[in-house]
């Protein structure tokens, strides 16, 4: 087993174990910080898939933006002292049954489907190609994305402002 395979296994382990802690931890602070491991692990998986730009975007937006937002929301909505009981879970056993059957079906499907393979797997820098695509064939979705972000920003400001009582 060479080094890159070992690193791949390590990254997969970190990703899955952190995701498991997000799902099963009783303390919401632990859940929120485990999300960091999951996001970093997914960025590592993107690197193994030759998607360097997507990995960088994942680190910038998920770890730098969404995770910080989630931590702020946790800090703003909980009294830190009773954080142990605020991450309650309900209906764990039926959910585990449903999820168990579901993941069994998914893995069987993945193993038995004859996936279409590319003729050759290339590892090349993708940033320039992605930039070109955004400015040619994906120009309309790209502009719509900026509108969606503007709408989300205004919506978040309107929702979270202090209500002025008349």
């Amino acid at each position, binding site marked *: 087993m060479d080094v890159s395979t070992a690193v791949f296994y390590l990254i997969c382990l970190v990703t899955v174990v952190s995701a498991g802690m997000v799902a099963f931890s009783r303390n919401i602070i632990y859940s929120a910080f485990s999300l960091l491991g999951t996001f970093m692990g997914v960025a590592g998986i993107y690197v193994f*898939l030759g*998607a360097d730009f997507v990995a960088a975007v994942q680190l910038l937006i998920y770890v730098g933006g969404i995770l910080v*937002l989630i931590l702020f929301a946790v800090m703003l909505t909980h009294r830190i002292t009773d954080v142990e009981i605020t991450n309650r*879970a309900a209906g764990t056993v039926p*959910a585990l049954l449903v999820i168990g059957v579901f993941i069994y079906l*998914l893995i069987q499907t993945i193993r038995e489907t004859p996936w279409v393979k590319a003729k050759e797997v290339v590892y090349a820098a993708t940033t320039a190609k992605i930039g070109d695509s955004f400015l040619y064939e994906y120009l309309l979705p790209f502009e719509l994305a900026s509108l969606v972000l503007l709408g989300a920003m205004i919506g978040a400001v309107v929702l979270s402002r202090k209500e002025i009582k008349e």
Partner: protein
Amino acid sequence: MSPNELSSYLIIGAILFSLGMFTVLTRRNAISVLMGVELILNSANINYVAFSHFGSGNHAGQIYAIFVIMLAAAEAAVGLAIVLAIFQLFHTIDVEAAETLKD
């Protein structure tokens, strides 16, 4: 399982999806539910990038993954703003406590 097979990435995506689904189904804390949604979006992104790498050979899947990441950021901002508004109104973010449409 090896780094050069499509199926290993798909299995990682399936495991992440199931854990995210479990989080969404069982948690009663709205922020935890949002964390589960992020896990689900990440698993979908892994599938996009994996199929783009092994299947099609072009980078359309990576562009879709970037759009998904962008929408996840918008969703997190609006979702957490809603959670803060619910907390100001009900003084809890238990998803079963906030069931009235009008106060």
